[in-house]
Every structure is written in structure tokens, then in C-alpha cells.
């Protein structure tokens, strides 16, 4: 569905690359996550893939269209949800969806049904300007599904939403996955990536460090952490998390076991975030 080869993108002429030689593929029906800290280049990648940013360098095919030739009709197959909840504040929720639907040359979904889906039923005729941030976000999210997209771009779909609303959005995304929609999802939330993505790419400073399924990642790196609590000489409790794959950590663990009073010790499954830190040397926030 998406094929990216050696994509680079720069905003200025200073040679600084926001995206630096990135390659990946997304198969049909797959949910592909871009996980990385702020400023990593996630939105920039989505911008190029959705045609908002001009393709500068690399080869990109999206939904069967080579991005070097601009074909507007490809958007009939694509849905895009943005980081910013960009709806017309002067139009009602319903009008926002209706006018948007008119811009497609493809069948579109019933706006009422979509508003219901994202929990905005009953607010159809209120102007988006009177909505809270979360409501606007849900409206923009609903809008991205209007044209039954085969390929769905979601930029931070749950960031800044309260947990209940985030749960609604996650539910909708899962339902679309079940229907076979291919999804490109960017986030800096590892729980979202873990829960929703078939495969995850770790992106830092514009480059992809690794691509794998959350499960493989956890199998490879999980259960390989040992959390140990022991008594110091002064009687206080010290706590350390040590990696069993690291030679230094193993020796340290052996040393603690030999010479200290152990309070608790158990192996622990690494979260995606911990794995992210191990691999990239960087946190997600």
C-alpha cells in the first residue's frame, strides 16, 4: 500500500534534514506505527506521504500512485487526520462533514453515523467553534473517515485527549482495522503503538532505527530485565534495573547477589518505551 525508499526532507536551505534517508513498506491491511519523540520527523513523513509537502528526495508510492506525478484522484482512497484539529469553526459539525464529503468523487459515509461513532451525536448542528479541543479533534477524526479510506493517515490520534475519549478513538481505529483498512499512525505514545500497531518503526532525529512488531520487540528484549532491591550498608533500600543481555549489568547483578542482602528480585517485561530507550538512547518525551 505504501512503499518508501530513501526519503529525505528538509524545510530550509541549511541542509538540516527533518527526515533523513528513510525507507519502509506498509502492506495492505497493516497498521504501521511511527514511534518517536517530539521533533523526530513523524509529521514531516506523513506530510510527504499525503502530498502536503513536496517530495524532495526519494521514491514514494502511496495507494498505487507514484508521488513524483501529482494525481489528485488518489485522495479518493486516502483519509487524513491531522495533528491540529483543523475544522471550520464557523460551520456546524454536520456542515463540516457535508461540505467535505462533496469534495470527493467517491461514495462517502453518512455524516450522522460518523458523528455518532465519535460520540458527537446530538451536537450535529452546533458550530465547531463552540466545541472543546477534544470535540474538534473527534470531528476532524470523523472527517478523515468520510470517504471509506483504503489508506488512513493518523497523526497523533489520541494525543491530548482525556482517557475516555482516547478509548473511543482507539475503539474506532480497531474497528477499521478489522475491516482491513491500511493505517499509518504516528505517535509518541508507546501504549498506543503497542496496542494498535502491527509493526512499529522507531524514529529519532529523522532516521528509522528499527522496524519490528511490538511482540518480537518484547520477546527479544523483554524478560531480560531484572529489577533488584537490596539493603545498603546504612540500612536503606537501593533499587536497580539491570539488563541480562549486557555483560557489565550481568556482572553487577552477580556482585549484588553475592555480597548484598536481597529484598526483592524479579524479572520484568520491558515496555516499548524502555526498549525504545535501549535502542535509541533517547526517551519518548
Amino acid at each position, binding site marked *: 500500500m505504501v512503499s518508501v525508499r530513501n526519503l529525505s526532507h528538509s524545510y530550509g536551505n541549511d541542509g538540516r534534514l527533518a527526515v533523513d534517508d528513510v525507507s519502509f513498506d506498509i502492506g495492505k491491511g497493516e497498521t504501521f506505527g511511527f514511534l518517536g519523540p517530539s521533533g523526530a520527523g513523524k509529521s514531516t513523513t506523513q506530510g510527504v506521504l499525503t502530498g502536503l509537502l513536496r517530495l524532495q528526495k526519494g521514491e514514494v508510492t502511496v495507494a498505487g500512485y507514484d508521488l513524483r506525478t501529482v494525481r489528485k484522484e488518489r485522495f479518493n482512497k486516502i483519509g487524513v487526520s*491531522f495533528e*491540529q484539529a483543523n475544522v471550520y469553526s464557523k460551520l456546524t459539525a454536520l456542515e463540516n462533514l457535508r461540505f467535505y464529503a462533496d469534495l470527493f468523487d467517491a461514495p462517502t459515509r453518512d455524516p450522522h453515523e460518523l458523528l455518532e461513532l465519535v460520540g458527537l451525536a446530538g451536537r450535529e448542528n452546533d458550530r465547531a467553534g463552540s466545541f472543546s479541543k477534544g470535540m474538534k479533534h473527534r470531528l476532524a477524526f470523523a472527517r478523515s473517515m468520510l470517504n471509506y479510506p483504503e489508506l488512513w493517515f493518523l497523526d497523533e490520534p489520541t494525543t491530548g485527549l482525556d482517557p475516555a475519549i482516547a478509548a473511543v478513538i482507539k475503539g474506532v481505529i480497531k474497528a477499521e482495522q478489522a475491516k482491513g483498512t491500511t493505517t499509518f499512525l504516528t505517535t509518541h505514545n508507546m501504549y498506543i503503538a503497542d496496542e494498535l500497531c502491527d509493526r512499529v518503526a522507531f524514529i529519532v532525529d529523522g532516521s528509522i532505527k528499527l522496524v519490528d512488531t511490538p511482540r518480537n520487540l518484547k520477546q527479544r528484549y523483554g524478560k531480560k530485565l531484572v529489577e533488584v532491591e537490596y539493603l545498603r550498608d546504612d540500612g536503606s533500600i537501593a533499587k536497580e534495573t539491570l539488563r541480562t543481555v549486557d555483560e557489565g549489568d550481568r556482572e553487577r547483578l552477580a556482585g549484588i547477589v553475592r555480597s548484598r542482602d536481597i529484598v526483592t528480585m524479579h524479572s520484568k517485561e520491558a515496555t516499548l518505551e524502555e526498549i525504545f530507550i535501549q535502542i535509541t538512547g533517547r526517551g519518548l518525551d
Partner: protein
Amino acid sequence: MKLASAYRKEMTIAFRGFYFYVEIVIALILLAVLLLAVDEYPEGREKEYAFYDASPAVVDAVFAELIEEGTLVPGEPEELTMKPASFEVADEAAGTSARYSFDEPRAVSARTMLEMDRSTGRKKKTIYLLDSEDDLLRLSFSSGDVGAVIRPGDDGRLYYRYILQGYETERVSNLLYALHAGSLDELGDAMDRQAVRSLGPVDRLDARESAVPLFVTFAGSLMGFFIVMAYLYLDKNEGAIKAIAVTPATVRTYLLSKTLVIMSTVLASSSVIVIPVMGAKPDYLLFYPFLLATTFAFAALGLFVASFFDSMDDAFGALYAIMIAFMLPAFSYLIGSFDPVWLRFFPTYPVLQVFKAVMLGKTDVPYALAVLAAFLVGGAAILLAAEARFKKTLTV
């Protein structure tokens, strides 16, 4: 159709916004001012100084005749004061010039004659009758009003010598010449060549009507240009442009829908003024197409200029300079004697001229159509240029 839907959306937003009502309210206020506060035929405040170089008996005889005709009505004598002054007077006919210098202030009492407009019965001009040519020169110099030295010739005709200020256009002097001294036939050629617009009393918009061409010109140019930019930046701030960019709708559809909204707004606000004030007088069949074509071009220019700036704040300098440039031709319109050639290169100049003619119902149709076509073609070219630029910059 996408354009129709986009247009409906933009109109809905415009109706719920601020700018649409600003235009309509401005039009309504102006309409109220024009209808309630502006007299259609205001009294002329023009002054002219005259010195009759003849014996009092001859002068009285001449006036008796003019009063008899109804052209002049005797007025109250007025006290006139003169300050010390020095200046130079050039005689164009002789090609000579003379310096004058007066060191003493001076006060005289002057008889006045009121020149009347026979069709409206209103005063057009006050003529001050002076006793010396020196007084005439001093008063004409200090006030900037026209002075005339009149001498009855041996042939029984009156000979006029006019004191002008030197900045009047040739047209003004020609008209004065034609008015008194020569026949119009003599001037015919010269006037045709200059494409003289009628300055005479025949084809004149009255005081109320003469505000209308100005308003409709500025509704399309200034307001159209400004408001289309405001709308565009509103969309940019809300980010709605990005959402449109990821649909099959084109940038062109988007830009066209914006210009159509501006055209509709200008259509409404102009009608608010034109129909009540002008009634059936204008050439409406020409007025509306011309209004729409010119507004289209000005809105396209607004979009093009907007493509160079990220926000209204960034664009403000350019916006301001262009709006001032659009306003300049109004000076020529308001001050008939000020009409330098360079002003004609400002796009609002021909628009103002055509609207004036259209309001009189006396349009030079081929000229108006040529201007209309030029604006349509130019507007389309500018819109294409804006489209090319926006394809790259609209969404970042």
C-alpha cells in the same frame, strides 16, 4: 460540482463572519449619508475675480444685459483684504512675464454678482467686481481662484484675459477659452485628441451621485482585495486548507470559490448604493458585468499577493502600499483639474472612469468592454500565477 459546493461553503462562512457585514454596513451608512445629508445640487462656492477694463457706464450696460438674461443676480458688496505679496505673472500669449510686489496690506469693498444655474435656479459662482487689475492679481494669487480681465472691444464683443495658477490642465484653459472667447469648432480637434471627458454642466453627476462611482470602484478594488486576503489567512490559521489539500478538489477550485464569494459580496454592497441613489439612470447591463469582472481581477490580485506571505501581519506592508495606490486615482476624480498622465496607469483609474460614464448612462461601450476584457484576462492570468504559487506554499 465541487466549485458549487465550495462556493456554498464559503458563502455560509462569509454570512457567519464579520467582513461580509462590514461591507454591507459601510454601504448602508454611506447610503444614509448620501440620501439624508448630501444635497443633490449644492450651492456653488466657486469664486471668480473680475476686472472690467472699461468706463463705469459701459460696465453697467454689460451687467444690465446679463441681469436681464437671468444669468447674473446682483449680490451684497463684500469687504476683501489683501496681504503684502510678491509674485510673477506670465503672459502666455505674448510669452512675456512680469514681477509684482506689494508691500502694503489693502482692503477694498467689492460689488458681487452671483452666477445662476438656469436649470436648477441655484447659485453656481460668486463674481467679485474689482476696480483695478492689481487688486485682481493679488486676490487671484492669494486665493487660488480664477481671475478675469474683461475689456469690451471696438467691435462690441467682450475680450477675456484669464489669470490662472499654472497647474490647471490644458483642458481647463481650453474650456475657459471655448466658454467665452472662441467657438467650440476651433477647439474641436484639440479636445478630441485629448479624449476630453465632459467637464461642462450638461453630463454631470450631481453631488450625491458623484459619490457612487467612487464607492463601487473601492468596493471592488480595496475591499475585494483586502477581504479575500483576510479570508485566506483565516483558513490558513484554522488549518482548513490542509484538509482540503488532501481531497481530490484542486487549488484552483479553492481559489475560485474565494473570488466568487468576494464578487457576491461586492455585488450586494454595490447594489445597496447604486440602485437607491441612481435609480434607472445607469446602464445596468454594463454595470454588473463590469463590476464583477473588475472585482474578480482585484480578488485574484489579493490571492496572488497573499501567496507571498504567511500571515496578515507579514502581508500588511504590501497590503497597505497597494491599497494606497488604488486610492490615488480618486484625486483626479474629485479634483477635475488634476489629471497627470502617470495616474492613468493605476488599475483603479480606468475603472473609475468607466463607472462614472456607466452611472450617467452615457458609456463609451467599446472602451468599457475593452477595459472589462483586460480585467478578465489580467485577472485570470493573476489567478493562474497565484495557483502556481499556492500549489507549493498553501499548506506549509
